[in-house]
């Protein structure tokens, strides 16, 4: 079976690219933060990519759309405004 890089590896790769894009915009005294973040994201992207290419299919690739749990509501919403009914 042809192996492919999973979504988690790609997610961390995108995160790494976002951090790299911020390096030039970051003030010089804080650039190490952007570099360190991109390095950490890159590390996980490579690790998951290697795992996907040499290992078994990841659990999320086995999940069918109908199996996915319904997205619950945001937990960190502020208190509801006075006009909305409380539950």
């Amino acid at each position: 079976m042809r192996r492919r890089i999973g979504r988690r590896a790609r997610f961390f790769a995108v995160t790494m690219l976002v951090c790299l894009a911020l390096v030039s915009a970051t003030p010089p005294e804080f650039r190490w933060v952007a570099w360190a973040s991109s390095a950490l994201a890159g590390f996980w992207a490579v690790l998951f990519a290697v795992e996907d290419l040499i290992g078994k299919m990841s659990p999320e690739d086995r999940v069918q759309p109908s199996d996915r749990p319904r997205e619950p509501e945001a937990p960190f919403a502020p208190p509801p405004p006075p006009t909305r009914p409380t539950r």
Partner: protein
Amino acid sequence: MATTALVIVILVALSFDFFNGFHDAANSIATVVSTRVLSPRVAVAWAAFFNFVAFLVFKTKVASTIAKGVVKPGIFTIAVVFAGLIGAIAWDVLTWLLGLPTSSSHALIGGMAGAAVAKAGWHSLLADGFRKIAVFIVLSPVIGLLLGFTILVLVMWAFHRYHKVDRLNRGFRRLQLLSAAAFSLGHGGNDAQKTMGVILALLIAAKHLPSSANVPLWVVLSAHTAIGLGTAFGGWRIVHTMGSRITKLQPVSGMSAESAAAATLFFTAQAGIPVSTTHTITGAIVGVGSTQRLSAIRWGVAGRVVWAWILTIPGSFIVAWAVYLPFKMIG
């Protein structure tokens, strides 16, 4: 007259701080209540207490950034600060009523900028200060995400052969008390300082303090008291209304997410960078969730964070700019 105006604006600033704690109360208690580590009442008191005592831990670098690193010296007046606060509060209230995502921290920065630009044009803003804040708007939730993921993976790796799951959960529940306290410290240390910065700017503008002054102790205590009370009142309201809608988390996940968010907030407070605590804990939760699978992540929540990035600063900027215009006409 000037003193009366000063007192009124200081009270408005403290009201903003109170509302900040009120609005963000869920951040402080949701994880620790969902894992049943603390009862809702105790969780609210725990979070409010550590919001208050954060002044013993952090220096006032974030306050200095707000007071002196965003707008050029001499631009702030009582009217400018007042318009900025009204812009931030109005935007927060509007988004709360409409259920839109927002960040109180970014609303304050946008409000201050809008009022300053209304008074003295775009050159009144300090590009370096805004650059720092703008970068960490994106970077702070990303750091929370990466740290949350890494911490949980390391913990899972360290304990993967430990079979006494109940004992392990009990241990992590105790650790979550510490991580929740650390997060509330970071929240208080970052968010209360924004109001301190505003009041410091006010006192300098009103010539009650020199431009090189640090934050007076009474300002520190009043800001932390306001945010602690806001957390207590907001948390209480959430306890009675959210109920089982709080996300279910395992103690180890809650501990990892809060530790990651706390570490990010501690760093940014020490570096004097104002960030959104809501976005930081959201990033940490996403990071922790992605250890299972990406479909376990509430992408709707993450999407709301992105919309808040886009909407908050421009929205509060426009409101504050409009509020200041009558003052400019009066002269």
